């Protein structure tokens, strides 16, 4: 009985190992970079039920397989959103699978020129020469050559010291330059009295930077009123290059007034006592 069992096991192992191992297909036209929809991969392989899959950085793609006499052709058709670069082709037959590292390249399509630079917003206090780096990409986001041999092109743009929004060459709203006014050059102060209403209006302005640009709306201006030990601070904001402050006449009479924006101070203005 023991012998029967023994022989049975031996027989089982002997016949169990009869199936021939699948041999790795040989890649005949080896290439470092493969272009989608253009290059075909040719493998020498015995006729088997081969399946192919391509693992890219973002998705799994199933290429087309054509079997010919002792060969298999793998054709990578264009699929939306292929990211170029390293990928792995897997050939599978039954439980055997073989992996071939490849580098993938998209077929050439119209690409959009974009720029990469910082800062996009600047004030006239800073340098008006700005660096611009241009690049282009295909619809899937793969970089494409801008010049014949470069993916990036550097340009220096000298901007005019005028405030405004300037569109860059790509023409989209998100790539505009923003030139803002710089620091105020000086703070001219003046006042006018409304005796009837017993009011005084103090005006600071026109407030412009060194290139005569109006300083930004909303800029904080601080009016200091001083007389002996008394000190009064009134904060106001600049609108259309002027800051106007109205207050009862008795609060200003006989006081020195100095306006301040950042580190720039006006000349003192003294309101005479009536």
């Amino acid at each position: 009985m023991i012998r029967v069992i023994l022989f049975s096991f031996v027989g089982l192992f002997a016949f169990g190992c009869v199936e021939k191992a699948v041999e790795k297909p040989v890649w005949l036209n080896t290439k470092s970079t493969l272009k989608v929809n253009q290059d075909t991969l040719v493998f020498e392989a015995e006729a088997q039920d081969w399946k192919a899959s391509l693992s890219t950085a973002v998705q799994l793609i199933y290429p087309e397989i054509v079997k010919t006499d002792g060969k298999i052709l793998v054709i990578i058709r264009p699929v939306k959103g292929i990211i170029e670069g390293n990928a792995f082709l897997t050939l599978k037959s039954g439980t055997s699978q073989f992996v071939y590292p490849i580098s993938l390249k998209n077929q050439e399509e119209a690409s959009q020129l974009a720029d990469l630079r910082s800062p996009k917003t600047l004030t006239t206090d800073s340098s008006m020469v700005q660096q611009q780096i241009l690049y282009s990409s295909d619809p899937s986001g793969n970089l494409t050559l801008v010049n014949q041999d470069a993916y990036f092109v550097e340009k220096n743009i000298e901007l005019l010291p005028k405030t405004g929004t300037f569109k860059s060459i790509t023409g989209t709203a998100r790539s505009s330059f923003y030139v803002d006014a710089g620091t105020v050059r000086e703070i001219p102060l003046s006042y006018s009295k409304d005796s009837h209403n017993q009011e005084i209006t103090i005006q600071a302005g026109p407030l412009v930077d060194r290139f005569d640009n109006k300083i930004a709306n909303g800029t904080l201006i601080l009016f200091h009123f001083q007389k002996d030990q008394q000190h009064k601070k009134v904060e106001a904001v600049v609108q259309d290059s002027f800051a106007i402050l109205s207050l009862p006449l008795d609060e200003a009479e006989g006081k020195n007034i100095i306006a301040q924006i950042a580190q720039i101070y006006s000349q003192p203005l003294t309101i005479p006592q009536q």
Partner: protein
Amino acid sequence: MKNQDQVLWSEFLGKRLLLVALSLGLLTHGIIVYFTLPQTYDAYVHMFFADHYSRFWFEPWEYRWYTGFLTISYPPLAHQLIALISKIFPLKIAFSIYAILIFEALILGIYRFTKMFYSKQTAGVAAILAVVLSSLVETLHVYGQVPTLTGLAFLLNALPFLYQYIKTSDWRYLLMSLAFISVTVSSHHVTAIFGMVFFIAPAMVMALVDGNPELGKKNLFGRFLPALVVEVWKKKKEILLFVFITIFLTITLIFPYWYWSRTDPISQVSIPHGSRDNFLEVTSSGLVFYVIPLLLIFALLPAISYLITKKKRHIGWAVSFYVCLLLGSGGTTPLPKLMLGETAFNILTLDRFGFWASIIAIPYISHFLVAFIGGSVKKFWAGKHGETSHFLISGLSGFSYLLFIIYIFHLASFRPLQPKAVEIEPIINFLNRDDHMRWRFLTLGFGDQMAWLSSNTLAATIDGNYHSARRLPEMTSRAVERLENAKYLMEEGMASLDDFLTKAEKYQLKYVFSNDRYYDPLLFYSGWNRTIRLENGIMVWEKGNISTIKPVQPTELNPILKKMWGTLPLSILFIAIAMTMIYLFYFKKSQEELIAEEEVSSYPKFVIYSSAWFPFVLFSSFLVYQIYEMLLIDEQKDPATTIYSHFNDLDFQRFDEAFLFFKPGPEYSLDQYLLEKSVSDGGLLPSFAKLDKLQIDTLKLTETSAQMNVHSTWRTSLGPREKEEVMNLERIDNKWYINPPKVELEIPEEQVISYTYTLFKKMGKRKVSSFPTVKDDRIKKPFAGFYQANLVQVNGELRLTGELINADNIPITLALKAVIRYDNDSTATFFPKKNFHFNLAPKASTWFQLPLGSQELEGEKKIIAISLELETDISERGYIRGGELSYELRAETNNSAVFEASMKNPFTGEITIPGVLISEKDSLGRIVQVDLWTYPKSIRPGLESSFQISVQKISSTAKILDQLPINLTINGQERELLLKPTTESALFQEKISFLPHCFLAQEIYLQ
């Protein structure tokens, strides 16, 4: 010995009563639990744990609270079962279903537990009693503690098996008892641990005494105890086997819990709990933790004491009962602390002992009730006083008890335990959009609903609702249960909250959902900005320049332990159920069922009379007192009470009720009062404060009039504030009334005022994309610069002071921090507190001060480098920092200066909290201190307020340390100090300067 007919009748009646109890339980608790659970203390916490298992069954790391904690810190069975039910039903319904099921199991457990003591009929009454027992009703409907109920339900079911095992040595009972105890261990560890002492030991003693009838006849202080020891020795094999297997199972089944408590022991400051209060001093704690759960026990204490001490078989239960009753009394006497020791006393919540005492008392109460309703007591009473009086006393006692139970069901309505329900959907939507989930959030004023919010989102909060698991030093070093309810925890709570709001960057805390405006001043002055008011009225506060959540390395746990935690508890439950089935169908039928034959045929007269009258007297007195307190208390009996009551209503914003304390008359109507209030009241004290203390002194008192000095102390999020006022009262028709205050209204001259605001709008992403950032849409970091930065030493402590400016043309928010590097290469980070403008209008500047505390200037912890790092971001809309500020120096000494100041409000909304930022400079113009000063009353539009500001000068003692250079960075780039030209004007030579720093509650800028 009863005859066979009596036994059969008792058994039949017992089972019917059990069915009645189960049905009643289903009808009462089943219907009401869904509606009471939102008001409970703990239901939402358990739902959060259930939600965790529902999402991550085998992963014990829960990242959503406290920057992460391990859920193995709480036995999982109840939570896992709710999680399983929640796969079919919504979480709240799943919790309710589970609560109902477990309550039914508990009723069954109490029925079986009582059978160890008395007949089945008594057990049936016990089952009905369980449905309406105040301690159980409170545990479910007020506390929402389903794991406790789960543990108890299975423990009580285990005890009869244990009893039978000790008595008969039948190993099948051993298996059954172990199965049920295992389920107890898997659901509530505290019940399991203390259950060993208070339930299992007495059950064993009872079985030993019942196993040898001769033992019960011996004298307690004579031969009983030695004979009991002999009996224990005889059963040593059974007892040791049970004890060892139980310990083994307790350790094995929730091994990860024990592993966690050994490797990561709780080391935090004890959190105060009402159950540890002296109930005579803190009567509200006494009511909730002692009176409500135990009033029936006190009412029937004579009967319970009589029955529990009548026979030797009850001796273990007697000890357990009285010890539990004593421990449950908390800090009323020093005994519980002496018995438990200081540490255990401060960790344990002692109400659970009272709860267990009430459970132990159930069989005795039931037995007395049976005798009272239809047994020997009834016979005695009817014979002596007639059937009618018995009917009346029974009816009145029962009716008053049921009213008492209804009161408990509605306790949350009489004494709100939680804030009003918050709709969480708008918050969930907010967290889901624009990647808000990439930062942590904090809720304020949500109560336990914060756990419900967490259950419904994957976003993480820095807070949490399970304090045993937290390990953040800012939390464990203070007696603060949650940040969420910091205002109730006095100074410690607010200090802890202040820490987190200030160090928001450390924990990537970016959003605060505020349901309580009490916190608004603190949030504002800590640099938080209002960003949006959600549809549910919740204000979202945001802090700019906060990094997204940094991955926290979870505490590693062996994968086998994870699998154990996920499978063992449920497996043991299924095993227990399977074994119960086998027991019911194959085993129970062949065994003699547990029927205790004890019958107490007569009671002493004292017990009968006291136990007949006490329930009615106590319950009706309780209810009458509650009604009196709510409706009938004379709030105007004397001047002081009148003022107390008036302030109480003011504190809870019940203005119409507060008005009733004013002297009635046509010249002062409610309309007039509310109108005057609306135009004269506002600011930190009236709108953002909670009354803390009231001291009332009599200045003048006659028969009909009084003049009182009222000194009130208020808690505000900016610290305590005090107020003193004189009130005049009159006595009319035996009631005291306050003379209405004479309000001299300031009215601006103008009929209409105007103010030009400059509002900004950050356009946000201009490309519709779910990606977090579209590169093209990135907005540059605004420009800023430092004018000065100084390291100042004052009284041995260091601080960084200075001035900086928004150099850009847009409003910005600032995030400033100081990183200090020590000689031993360690670093520490410090943030500004309230002495800083966190928002700046274009070209506005601010002073700043960062406290560095005591630092060593020599040795290993010597500072070798200081880096002052500023991050800027575009502000959402804009910023106004205050009205027109005037000030004049009135008096000055070397150490102090007094200014007369005034602020005029030119805006269209009120300045809610007028405030100024004060800076003091030394002789070289270097800032040595920056301070915040606030005024308690608001300033209405067009009006001006005057006040006096006292400044404690430090320039004579402050020392500027020049030897340590301060490295400045702005938005990650190194920067030099900006030059600030000096002017000759005396204006700019002042040593002490002010800048407005006010909070405007009106949401003009949402600042």
